[in-house]
Every structure is written in structure tokens, then in C-alpha cells.
């Protein structure tokens, strides 16, 4: 294989399709009850040092209950990736949970500005980083989902983003065109938040899917958090709507408002006031420590966190904002 150029970024995961096949060979396809708590899912499937990936997009449909629990259980040495990671990234930076990072969009919260604490962490030199574009990262997951060791894109060519990635430039055997070959990414574990799922893991996402179709198929272990668990008959009534089948799933966790303070399409909008509070308190490391003690370390569950953020009343307000209902 002629490699015309290659990035110098680290490659944190093994792109060998045989290793992935062997793993998946041993994973049961049995349709069994996979319900468990957030705590158990993190204990069982997200050990220190594993490579973790989040679904959703920044502060939209993120598996935030899992992110909080990862921090609460003080996980360290994780690898991490996600698509336009904003609040999820901010939470994991708060716990310094990862030290290996496939970055596509980090540190920022889009229109909300940049996270002071995430910047401090990323400027500390403590995190080993490879940079990618959003699509290159999606193409890595897609390649893994296809059972092949690399994917092709014309993104990144000619830039420092390419140079700081682990991609390589190859030529098309038909046209001679150059492509960035991106290595398949099989995360050890991913967490994806969905609208509803049955106890076996069959899951339905409403609205945009971001790269979660690909991520669900690439991840070796998959934790589904869901707004509600439904009887399987609901799934079988409309199989066209299913995007994640049960055999991909290891854990099904019912977490109403599991994307809070992020947006969950059709159900609740992001809590911009609370997100602004995160940004504000992050400016002062001491204040931020107290904030984390109050909201993450000092609570036993994600439900308690939501309670401390205003609970039912707050959620009702976010439901109205989401649905464009004037107060």
C-alpha cells in the first residue's frame, strides 16, 4: 500500500477488524432483560483506562447521567471521543476522567462561549490529543460499523488537522484521486441517550441522529439511557423507527431527563441558565470544586442532581420552551 503522507497524531485504539470480529463473536445476541442502574452500568462497562464515546451532539441528546456517574465514580485514564462534545466534554473535564482524546470539537459550547475549566485542562499538557474533523470522526465510526479497518474522506487534506490526526493519504485505484484514509474506531464502550427503548435494548431516536447510528454499531459495549422503557410491542408496532437493535446493547437504563441540562428534542430544551452557571463558576477553580461537590460528588444519583437544579418545576419550564409554549 502506497502511503503518500501521514499524520503524526496518536492512534488510541486498534483498527484491526479481526480483533473486533473476535470480540463481537463472543458477545451474546440473546434477547434478555438488560435493565440496570446508571451506577451498575458504569461499574460494569466503563472501567478505568477504557476508551469511552458519547452519543448526541454537545448539549443535545447527550447521555449526561452516565457522564456524571463516570465523574462520581472518579474514573481516570479514559480515552474519549464524541461529536461536537460541549457539555459532556465539560463534565468529563471536571473529573479529569480522560487523558487520551480524539478531538473533533472540544472546549467550546457553541454560541455559549468557551469552558474555562475545559480550557485549563486542555492547556495543561496532561491530555494526549489527536485532532480530527467531525466528519472524519464519523467516518472512523462508520468504517468500524462496516467491519473494515479504514474509511475514506476528502476532509482534512492539506491541513494541520490532518497532520495532528492519525490519518494517512492514499490513492484511489480507479481514478488516482487522493483521500484521507481514517482508521476504524471501535470504542470499548459508548453511551447513547434515546427517546424510548425496550428492556432488551431496541431503541428509537426522534429527530436528528448525529453519528449515533454509526457509534452504536462501532462500540464494543453499548449503554443505552432512555427517557422511558417501553414494552417491546411498541417497538414491534413500528420497526421502521428502530435505529439501534437489541443485539448491540449491553445495558438499558431508564433515565428520564437524562440529557439535562442538555436539549432532548420534542421533550425539553437545554437549561441555559444552568449551563451559564457552569461557565461562570468554572472561572474560579475553588468555586468550581464546591459546585461539583454540590451537584455531582455530593449526590448519589442524577435524579438528585436534577432535584437540586430545580426539579419538576424547572423541567416543566424547559418542556414549555422546547415546545415553543409561551409562559
Amino acid at each position: 500500500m502506497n502511503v503518500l503522507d501521514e499524520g503524526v497524531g496518536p492512534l488510541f485504539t486498534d483498527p484491526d477488524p479481526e480483533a473486533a470480529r473476535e470480540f463481537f463473536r463472543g458477545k451474546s445476541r440473546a434477547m434478555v432483560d438488560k435493565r440496570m442502574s446508571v451506577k451498575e452500568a458504569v461499574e460494569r462497562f466503563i472501567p478505568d483506562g477504557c476508551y469511552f464515546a458519547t452519543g448526541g451532539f454537545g448539549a443535545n441528546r447527550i447521555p449526561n447521567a452516565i457522564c456524571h456517574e463516570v465523574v462520581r465514580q472518579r474514573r481516570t485514564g479514559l480515552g474519549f471521543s464524541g461529536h461536537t462534545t460541549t457539555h459532556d466534554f465539560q463534565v468529563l473535564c471536571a473529573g479529569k476522567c480522560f487523558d487520551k482524546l480524539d478531538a473533533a470539537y472540544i472546549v467550546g459550547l457553541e454560541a455559549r462561549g468557551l469552558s474555562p475549566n475545559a480550557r485549563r485542562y486542555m492547556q495543561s499538557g496532561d491530555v494526549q490529543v489527536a485532532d480530527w474533523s467531525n466528519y472524519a470522526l464519523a467516518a472512523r465510526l462508520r468504517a468500524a460499523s462496516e467491519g473494515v479497518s479504514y474509511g475514506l474522506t476528502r476532509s482534512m487534506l492539506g491541513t494541520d488537522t490532518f497532520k495532528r490526526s492519525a490519518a494517512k493519504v492514499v490513492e484511489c485505484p480507479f481514478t488516482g484521486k487522493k483521500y484521507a484514509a481514517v482508521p476504524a474506531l471501535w470504542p470499548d464502550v459508548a453511551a447513547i441517550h434515546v427517546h424510548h427503548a425496550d428492556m432488551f435494548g431496541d431503541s428509537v431516536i426522534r429527530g436528528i441522529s448525529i453519528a449515533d447510528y454509526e457509534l452504536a454499531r462501532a462500540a464494543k459495549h453499548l449503554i443505552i439511557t432512555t427517557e422511558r422503557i417501553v414494552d417491546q410491542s411498541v417497538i414491534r408496532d413500528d420497526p421502521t423507527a428502530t435505529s439501534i437493535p437489541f443485539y448491540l446493547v449491553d445495558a438499558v437504563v431508564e433515565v428520564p431527563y437524562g440529557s439535562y441540562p442538555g436539549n432532548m428534542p420534542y421533550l425539553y430544551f437545554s437549561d441555559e441558565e444552568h449551563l451559564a452557571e457552569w461557565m461562570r463558576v468554572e472561572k474560579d477553580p475553588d468555586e468550581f470544586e464546591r459546585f461539583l461537590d454540590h451537584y455531582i460528588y455530593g449526590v448519589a444519583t442524577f435524579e438528585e442532581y436534577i432535584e437540586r437544579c430545580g426539579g419538576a418545576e424547572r423541567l416543566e419550564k424547559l418542556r414549555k420552551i422546547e415546545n415553543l409554549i409561551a409562559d
Partner: protein
Amino acid sequence: MAPHYNMMELMISVAARHLEDGKTVAVGTGAPCAAAMLAQKTNSPNLVVVFEAGGVAPLLPEMPISVGDSRTFYRAVMAAGMVDAMTTCARGQVDYAFLGGAQIDKYGNINSTCIGDYRKPKVRFPGSGGANDFASLCWRTMIMTVHSKTRFVETCDFITSPGFLTGDGAREAAGLPEGGPYKIITDLGVMGFDEETKAMRIDALHPGVDVEKVQSETGFELIVPDEIGRTEPPTAEDLRILRDEVDPLKLVIGRA
């Protein structure tokens, strides 16, 4: 008598007029989104707005906060995914994309990744997100930014997203498809790129701005054509739509 307007309103109006009817535009939050919405309500009713996370042609009820939030596919014709959005660009079906960044050089290359040493950066920014993809794959990338010497630099600390790289022929040599930066709309005017050298040039200046002013705020030498246009200020109708329909909460136009 021309109506009163602020700089953000001017920039949005100028950007809107560059978006042709019957074309697609990939937008982010803020001013680019406002420009696309204004274009739809004025010169380009058939402009199709797409978002990188999967939203296609929504009926935007208000400004999105995130390019993946619920608003980006509110009553959309399709709520797809990122692979669909990006491959639509790769196939050549997205005409315009808006980018931003901390630094831009004379070939329109953009830095949104870091300042200083990459491994332990002085300042770490978000990185590419979808920007590199748009800059690589869309036909015409548009940039809206304030014009200053710290932003318009001789050399970017890091090239996150490709402009014309090192000039004419460089995109092709790197394997990138035809495309590249089209217009840069700043608070001083509109910059374009020379057809031959692909270096940045002055296309038009805002009312009251002269060449010296632009050059003094730019960290490299701009090409100054014999003929430089004047940007048309927003019309009263532009302003009414922008203020009443596009951004009634003044989230974007209130900032200027």
C-alpha cells in the same frame, strides 16, 4: 434618507445578498444563520438551509443555540444525521458554508484549533468541528468576522480548515475538490480572492471605510484592484425583516 443600522445588521445584509436562490447553505449559529434567514425572506426564497448534525430545511422558529439543537430541525423536511449532511457536501450538493475562526491568512486558511505549541497550547480552541469538512467539501465557503491584525495574520499558528492552502493549484495537489473561500465579510468590507493567485483581495468596502484602513487592520498585504466596490447598506425592508422576523430577541443583531 438611508435608515440607521448597526455593523452586525450591515454584515448580515451583505452576507445575505451573496446567497443565490435555489442553492444550499450550511450554517452555524448566530450571524450566518441570520444571514441565511434574511436571504430566504428577500432575494433567495428557495435557499435551502442545512445543519451539520442533520437538520434539512427547517422552518426555524428562532435562532438555534447549537447547530444540533431542536430548532435546527423544527418542522424540517428531514431530520437526518451527520454522515448524511457531510456526504451531501462531499457529493457537491452544498453550495455555501459559513466558517469562523481565530486566525485567517491571505489564502483564506483558518485556525480554530490553538495558539502556541500544539501539545501544550497557550490557547486551545474548539478545533475543526464540522469546519474543516465544510471548507474541504462545499463549493464556496463564507467567513464573517471582525477585521483586525490579530485575526488576519501572515501565518496561522495551525491550519484547521483549508482555504487555498499555499495558493493556486494547492487544493488540487492536496487532493481537495474544487471549492475554497469565496467571500469574507468583515466590519470593514468584503474580501474576495484573486482568480489567479488565490490571494486575498479587497472586493468592496463599507461606507466610510478606505483602503488604508483595511490594510492597516490586516497582517499581510491585500491585493487592491483598480475597481473597488462599495457595499450596499441594508434597505429599510432588510432591517424590518431582520429586526421583526429573523432576530426579534436581538440575540445576534443586538450585539453589534
